């Protein structure tokens, strides 16, 4: 095979997009009359908006070679507190802020706990908050869901724009715009600011980063705050979508988020990965579930297949990199 540096570079950056396109073609061939309908495509976008936000937050943490296991619990706590605030009759702009603020608060606890207590690995701090925060979510609700939010609070999670061309319930979901704004903002932050480049530097080699004058602890706290904020924002979307804050929300969500980040080509050892890859990783998981659902494949098989896809996607990445090094 001819070696072309241009093609290699292209595959390195956009190979994952090709995977998404191939999956879409395969699913479209399996159920042509359903998959490509505007309604089904809209479904895929709005069903994965929350996961996309949480995965973007998880991605920033993983770039520093860290992990945040608490995001599912954080999302649930955000949802139940904002639902409580809504029930208490607080004005809607305040309620809108509650979810992301709760996320930021949990992120602060994670980041400060990690750096201040000098715990050996973020796994431990966030495993602690995974349990504690979920417990608080059950405590404040007594375990029962809190339903019925103000329409303004539901807007971001529920609204969509038919642009005069789609018939309901198809259209561009407001949640997609939230995801797009966050993704572009995060991309700009990581690629174009010095703090963003420091985040990659910490993941690549924390010792070197520290020696060259990077405020490692400060940046780690910031990174967990971003993950918490994204989980809180994801909670706002899901609460809006379901019209409810339920304390069971987001069980195991952290694992879906990690899977999406890893499928998207980020390295568990830090320093590598792109925002575009994460979004593709989320889409791959979402497409897989949608394709299996519209073909009425049992949910047990879905779990098996998602597991295989995670392993396979990372294996492809390993092979591609090894080939690149050899050249």
């Amino acid at each position, binding site marked *: 095979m001819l070696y072309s540096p241009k093609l290699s570079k292209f595959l390195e950056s956009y190979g994952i997009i090709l995977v998404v396109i191939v999956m879409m073609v395969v699913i479209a061939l399996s159920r042509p009359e359903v998959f490509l309908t505007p309604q089904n495509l809209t479904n895929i976008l709005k069903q994965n908006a929350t996961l996309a936000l949480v995965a973007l937050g998880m991605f920033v943490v993983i770039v520093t070679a860290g992990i945040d296991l608490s995001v599912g619990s954080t999302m649930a706590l955000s949802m139940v507190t904002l639902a409580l605030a809504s029930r208490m009759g607080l004005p809607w702009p305040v309620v809108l802020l509650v979810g992301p603020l709760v996320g930021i608060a949990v992120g602060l606890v994670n980041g400060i706990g990690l750096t201040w207590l000098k715990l050996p690995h973020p796994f431990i701090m966030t495993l602690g908050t995974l349990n504690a925060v979920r417990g608080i979510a059950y405590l404040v609700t007594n375990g029962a*869901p809190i339903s019925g939010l103000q329409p303004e609070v539901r807007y971001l999670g529920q609204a969509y724009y038919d642009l005069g061309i789609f018939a309901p319930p198809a259209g561009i979901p407001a949640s997609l715009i939230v995801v797009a704004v966050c993704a572009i903002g995060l991309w700009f932050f990581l690629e174009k600011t010095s703090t963003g480049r420091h985040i990659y530097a910490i993941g690549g080699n924390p010792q070197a980063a520290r020696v060259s004058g990077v405020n490692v602890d400060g940046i780690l706290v910031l990174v967990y705050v971003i993950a918490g904020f994204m989980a809180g924002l994801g909670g706002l979307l899901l609460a809006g979508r*379901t019209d*409810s804050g339920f304390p069971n*929300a987001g069980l195991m969500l952290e694992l879906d988020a990690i899977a999406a980040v890893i499928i998207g080509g980020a390295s568990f050892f830090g320093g590598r990965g792109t925002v575009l890859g994460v979004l593709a990783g989320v889409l791959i998981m979402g497409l897989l579930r949608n394709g299996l*659902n519209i073909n009425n494949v049992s949910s047990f098989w879905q779990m098996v297949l998602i597991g295989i896809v995670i392993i396979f996607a990372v294996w492809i990445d390993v092979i591609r990199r090894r080939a690149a090094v050899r050249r």
Partner: protein
Amino acid sequence: MKRVLLAGIALGAMTMGAHAQTFVLGMKGPGAGNPFWAAVEAGAKAAGEEHGVEVIVVAPPQESDVQAQINQIEDLIAQGVDGIALAPTDPNALAPVVDSAIAQGIPVVFVDTRGTNEGVSFIGTNNQVGAALAAQYMCDNLPEGADVAILQGLISQSTGQQRAQGAHDGLGECGLNIVAEQPANWDRAMGLSVTETILAGNPNIAGIFASNDNMALGAVEALKQAAMLDDVMVVGFDANPDAANSIVAGDMTASIAQAPDNMGRFGIESLIALTNGETIEEWVDTGTVLVDASNAAEYQ
């Protein structure tokens, strides 16, 4: 001195308790915060007062804490109670405890959740019958041959299996056309997503049965978004307050209520019967009630 006094009081309390029969109700979770367990507890307490027996109610501090429940029941067996009505958090894990109670001559019945021990009666909802009741309601109110879908709970659990099976048989037998049967794992967000996917492939759907109310309320949101709620009937299971509100508001169509107070009441009454040497049925059905716009206000 103080310790002796305390021990004396404790001993006195125990011997005093020995005059009346003492029965234990072991629940899966605390009654505070969960209306279901609160109703089971109230039913058992009421039965205790009527029959002049003492009823001790215990529950793990956290719903479904298996180890805590095992410890509680072991401690009560050691105290020598007269009978135990148990809602096992994990039937297999509790089986040895139940066996040891029976070996010491303490009668046991299961409430709410069936255990694995042979020969121990079960007092609880027949979920299959309840789901069939929901199916019957849909059959009566939908034209023959209409498209319907089933949202299943966790189908690795017996409750999930029974409700899915009861609905499947009931809807199929009366000639409705089941176009989709998919699990949404008791979860509202998943109920919403799964319904969206079902609607994309089946625009003519006329009815949805969800194996619990959380999933039914998710389905209602999906139908609202698709502007199809007026044309599609949604029937849930559990009749929780959220669902009752939704039925009163005209969103959800109906739900199925269990009778948790009957579980507590029949549990204690069965234990009294057993200690009197009577036999009870292997399965005492506590019954299910259809809740629609006519009676939903009682469940709000």
